[in-house]
């Protein structure tokens, strides 16, 4: 596709799939086949590794419940450590899914069809990983239900003026909406699986999950409308969830946190890291399952462009923070930012700048934007950088607060690290189960963007749109 016909292909093939090799039947066979074939050995290897990490997570949480948050590296000024960093990082990663499924859907970006199922699943699993951390960091996990407004004998009621409570609602709403959206999109594909199933049990399970889908005209109209409405509901959530997460910091009075730029800055960072994670996972999956003709290099290039854009938005936020610190004339604000760049944690700051601002700049070059190994490394570095962004925000401001007598250096312990590493176990365990048992690409939607689906397509002599 990298020749002169590309522009024409762009219009005649809005889904960006390399249509010549694909028919409706071969697409169904390809995607369904992945789950119907015998489980490949490499899947077991990956699942074993992921499940071991999941056990590490469970062990770390078990010890935390037994012993308390003292096992973490928290100290007197730094009362928020890796737990909050990991929470914000995972929630951020969860942002690409809804952006792809809702906003790109409303904007008629039809190339989303090849990657949306994948990205939505990743969103759900990332939010699950994220929700672990605020759940376990409360110390007394058995009273975590105090975060919910449930009547009880103590007359205890959540404090609705606290942004931490807004967080509980924002993230759980986001999870519910994403789950419904993902499931609604799955229904026709689940019905395909039901119809192809040979075994009784599989027929029953997919029969229940597909909610009686027969593919009639009326069902399709209801389905399309429901999908559109859910996209409309989810769109504001993409922007609101990470804005609310940012108020955890912005509502406080700590220099470096108390900033009005935080909501848009966090949203841009979330989309940035979310797309980086989608790219990382997509590259692996399309390689292993030979999906290069469905998730093409054009899809990856488009995601790289979004990363370039959001990466520069994040870079702009970093610089404007420095500008405002100078412009405000507030010595505490100025100190915090100078300390970030040149203080104890300067190493973390410069990792963040290199990974988040410098690395995406390689995507200006078209050749690198379309080179799989380059983008694979870049996407991983971007997520490293985004983790360090949250580390810099949380730790530098806390460890150097108003009173120098309070200052202390924060270091993680073994248990901080094992909990974080273990959360990848949960993420990949769920992800591997997903690609084993569910259609990882939306057959329905990709079929709709195949050239054959359009009577005016190139093959029948006309151009789309």
């Amino acid at each position: 596709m990298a020749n002169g016909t590309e522009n024409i292909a762009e219009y005649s093939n809005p889904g960006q799939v390399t249509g010549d090799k694909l028919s409706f039947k071969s697409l169904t066979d390809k995607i369904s086949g992945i789950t119907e074939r015998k489980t490949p050995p490499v899947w077991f290897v990956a699942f074993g590794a992921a499940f071991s990490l999941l056990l590490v997570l469970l062990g770390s949480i078990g010890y935390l419940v037994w012993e308390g948050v003292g096992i973490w590296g928290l100290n007197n000024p730094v009362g928020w450590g890796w737990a909050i960093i990991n929470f914000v990082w995972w929630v951020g990663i969860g942002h690409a899914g809804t952006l792809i499924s809702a906003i790109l859907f409303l904007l008629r970006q039809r190339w989303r069809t090849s990657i949306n199922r994948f990205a939505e699943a990743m969103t759900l699993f990332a939010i699950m990983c994220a929700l672990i951390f605020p759940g376990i960091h409360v110390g007394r996990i058995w009273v975590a239900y105090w975060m919910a407004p449930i009547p009880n004998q103590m007359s205890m009621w959540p404090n609705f003026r606290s942004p931490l409570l807004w967080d509980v609602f924002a993230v759980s709403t986001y999870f519910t909406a994403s789950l419904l959206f993902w499931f609604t999109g799955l229904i026709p594909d689940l019905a395909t699986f039901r119809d192809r199933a040979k075994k009784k049990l599989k027929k029953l399970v997919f029969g229940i999950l597909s909610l009686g889908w027969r593919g009639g005209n009326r069902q399709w109209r209801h389905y399309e409308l429901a999908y559109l409405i859910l996209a409309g509901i989810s769109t504001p959530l993409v922007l609101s969830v990470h804005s609310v997460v940012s108020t955890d910091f912005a509502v406080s009075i700590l220099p470096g946190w108390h900033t009005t730029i935080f909501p848009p800055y966090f949203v841009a960072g979330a989309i940035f890291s979310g797309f980086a994670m989608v790219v990382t996972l997509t590259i692996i999956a399309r390689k292993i399952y030979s999906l290069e003709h469905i998730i093409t290099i054009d899809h990856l290039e488009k995601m790289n462009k979004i990363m370039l854009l959001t990466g520069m938005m994040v870079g702009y936020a970093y610089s404007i923070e420095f500008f405002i610190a100078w412009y405000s004339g507030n010595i505490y604000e100025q100190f915090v930012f100078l300390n970030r760049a040149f203080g104890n944690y300067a190493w973390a700051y410069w990792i963040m700048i290199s990974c988040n601002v410098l690395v995406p700049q390689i995507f200006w070059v078209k050749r690198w934007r379309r080179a799989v190994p380059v983008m694979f490394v870049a996407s991983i570095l971007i997520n490293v950088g985004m983790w360090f962004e949250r580390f810099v925000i949380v730790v530098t401001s806390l460890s150097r607060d108003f009173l120098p007598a309070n200052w202390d250096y924060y270091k993680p312990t073994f248990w901080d690290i094992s909990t974080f590493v273990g959360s990848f176990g949960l993420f990949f365990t769920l992800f591997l189960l997903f690609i084993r048992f569910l259609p990882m690409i939306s057959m329905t939607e990709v079929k709709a963007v195949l050239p054959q689906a359009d009577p005016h397509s190139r093959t029948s002599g006309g151009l789309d749109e």
Partner: protein
Amino acid sequence: MAQIFPEWTNKLPPFIALGAIIIVIGVIGFVWYYFSPWYTDVGYRPVQPVPFSHKLHNDDLGIDCRFCHNLVEVSPHANVPPTQTCMNCHKLIKPDSEKLAKIGESWEMKKPMQWIRIHKLPDFAYFDHSVHLRAGVGCASCHGNINQLEVVRQNTPLSMSWCLDCHRNPDMHLRPVSEITNMYWTPPDNQMELAKIIRGDKDINPKTDCSACHR
């Protein structure tokens, strides 16, 4: 293609939805009541080593609460009387009673009686009897009609919401300090005005912030 599910399954979804709603509300309601001290603590009535009757001593004989619980007005803790207090009278009254054998033993051996504690507050909740009595909260407001009981039982849940109910709206539970041990006192018709005077005189504004009790 053959049908996977029989026809009656079409009617299931509304029942599942209704069932889910009922289960969620049911679980919350169940925990709300059955996991609370209203269910677990109220009515606790252990058998004491000596069958001491509050009805006999207080109601029939007219001994004031503070004759035995003598520190209740000045101390955070309402003391259970020592054996010596019992023996003030029982050296002369029914010294050979079988029911009193354990009191006699405690007196001879100089070992305190092991009464079973009924009203327990957790360590993280601070409570001061003297403050409440001085404000004009009567014994009966929390302990109920203890003067009618042969065996003492816990009358109120002592739960956090129970504390807060009174702290937020104490007017019905305030009385003149002279009446605090009067078990037959009932709020007069002009209780609200009386409470207003009591609160004004002593500047009573019950605290409801966390650190009032969780110090």
